[in-house]
């Protein structure tokens, strides 16, 4: 069933993107929201919503990274650091570790602010760097943050923080079911996608595009490039702070090994797969890659086991499979599955010049 839900959702958002009439768009989005809200009451398999809630967190993360990489064109290879900061914010503020038990909903705001601030702290000294140099510094930051958590005994060192508080809403505890988290991620995605869409059409969004295209010309248009880039880092980071809180609350623990380099790469791959800069593309790319690992590969394992009577675990090869997918995308469709118009032209032209020169 999970594939039906996801494919139906993808179909709906693609139709929304291709439709011109505002009324039809709103109608489809409303129908989609209603359906997604009703489904858990009809389908009682919690495992499905467990997978979807995890995927939802990654959709939020990918939408945040899209601000930095897709809109502003700043290659950030350490994005998981902000995810970690969000998750640890929940770990510190809602666990017996320090005896602090703030409500989940309050921590969402606090974590978004902390992660945003961390984005500014990282950005301020590094945003004078361009391209590859910026990527290397962000890569370093992405390594440093989990290391700091790992080496800080106060936050549990390598063991992290366990027994995190179970969130509650309107007096009802979330309990052990995944469905409440599914609803939280739905709300989170809606919020984050709406903000990202507003930004893309705003004065700030255009300033990001100008910087991505030609930073020197952007300065001549009166754009304060340093502040504008910092805004991208801060906003992108705050999205992943939100995702981190939901992730930590759902898992019930945080530990440094959850936020390694491969998480940053995974999120970046979602953008590449779906189409950088395109909201629909990023949502689809992140859903597809999340489900590949958590649902599709285990299912294929089961099919292979029952038909060929061989026991293989394809999830052990998931990075190989991501790699093959990414290489294929780069060769055949460098702009991603569902790119926006600007990026399609740009990345396609870039790929053609590279291969012909």
């Amino acid at each position, binding site marked *: 069933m999970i594939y039906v839900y996801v494919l139906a959702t993808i179909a709906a958002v693609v139709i929304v993107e291709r439709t011109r009439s505002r009324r039809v768009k709103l109608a489809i989005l409303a129908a989609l929201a209603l359906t997604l809200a009703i489904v858990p009451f009809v389908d009682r398999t919690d495992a499905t919503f467990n997978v979807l809630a995890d995927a939802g967190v990654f959709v939020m993360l990918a939408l945040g990274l899209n601000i930095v990489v897709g809109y502003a064109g700043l290659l950030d290879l350490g994005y998981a650091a902000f995810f970690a900061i969000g998750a640890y914010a929940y770990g510190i503020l809602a666990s017996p570790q320090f005896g602090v038990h703030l409500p989940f909903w309050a921590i969402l705001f606090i974590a978004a602010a902390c992660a945003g601030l961390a984005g500014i702290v990282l950005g301020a000294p590094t945003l004078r760097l361009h391209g590859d140099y910026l990527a290397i510094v962000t890569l370093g930051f992405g390594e440093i943050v989990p290391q700091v958590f790992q080496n800080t005994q106060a936050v549990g060192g390598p063991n992290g923080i366990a027994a995190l508080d179970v969130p509650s809403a309107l007096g009802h505890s979330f309990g052990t079911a995944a469905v409440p988290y599914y609803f939280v991620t739905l709300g989170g995605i809606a919020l984050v996608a709406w903000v990202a869409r507003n930004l893309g059409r*705003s004065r700030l*969004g*255009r300033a990001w595009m*100008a910087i991505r295209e030609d930073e*020197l010309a952007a300065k001549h248009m*009166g754009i*304060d490039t340093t502040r504008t880039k910092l805004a991208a880092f801060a906003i992108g980071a705050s999205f992943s702070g939100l995702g981190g809180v939901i992730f930590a609350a759902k898992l019930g623990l945080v530990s440094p090994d959850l936020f390694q380099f491969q998480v940053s790469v995974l999120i970046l791959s979602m953008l590449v797969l779906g189409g950088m800069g395109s909201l629909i593309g990023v949502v689809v790319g992140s859903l597809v890659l999340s489900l590949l690992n958590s649902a599709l590969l285990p299912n294929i394992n089961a099919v292979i086991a029952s038909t060929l009577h061989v026991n293989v675990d394809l999830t052990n090869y998931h990075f190989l499979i991501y790699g093959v997918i990414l290489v294929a995308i780069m060769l055949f469709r460098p702009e991603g599955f569902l790119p926006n118009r600007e990026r399609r032209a*740009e990345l396609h032209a870039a790929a053609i010049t590279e291969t012909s020169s």
Partner: protein
Amino acid sequence: MTALLSIDGVSKSFGAVCALSGVDLSVDAGSIFAIIGPNGAGKSTLFNAITGIYTLDSGTIAFDGRRIDGLPTFVIARRGIARTFQNLRLFGFLSAIDNVLIGEHARMRGTLVDSLLGTPRARAQERAARERARAWLDFVGLNDVGEQFARNLSYGAQRRLEIARALASQPRLLLLDEPAAGLNPTEKRELADLVRAIRDRGVTVVLIEHDMGLVMSLCERIAVLDHGEKIAQGAPAEIRANPAVIEAYLGAPA
């Protein structure tokens, strides 16, 4: 008339190469002013010095009576100096109208919250900005290209688009770096008309140009640079008769 732009004793070297040495210039408000000189004379360097791309080794630049040397480029742009580039620097993969909208950036108001939430105020402002951008495209003679990528426009149209983008910031001083390069005679005539129309809107224009016919017919004042030094300044007729200028262009008499 008062000087809108005053350049005093500006020098700039790159290593051993002296790109500008002790250049003085004064541009009156409301004039069309040309900077000419052989290739490598320092003309574009002077533009880059004015817009804050280069820091000066010595000298001062004042705009409307206030020092602007040492300020960051975006602040100078916000003060009211816009420019075009010798080798077109459009945002190639954005539509023509988006290019002009980015030109309006500094003239638009809006807080971060407006951008995040897409408030009614932000949307109203956005609509108004879009209408102004269309008007600027019309003004430079680009009526039906709004949604096309800048890089897909013809060369002449790209030159015009760059001027529209610069005008969208509502500057008081417009710097045009070789605006006629690569244009055919008809396009050059249209460019001259456009520059006059810009001046008539109250914008002072300084242009770097190699086409002497265009410079002599269009500009009221001309400065000549050679090897980073100003060798002459005056009205077109004076420049044409100036022996130093003739020598710079044709070489020393045998």
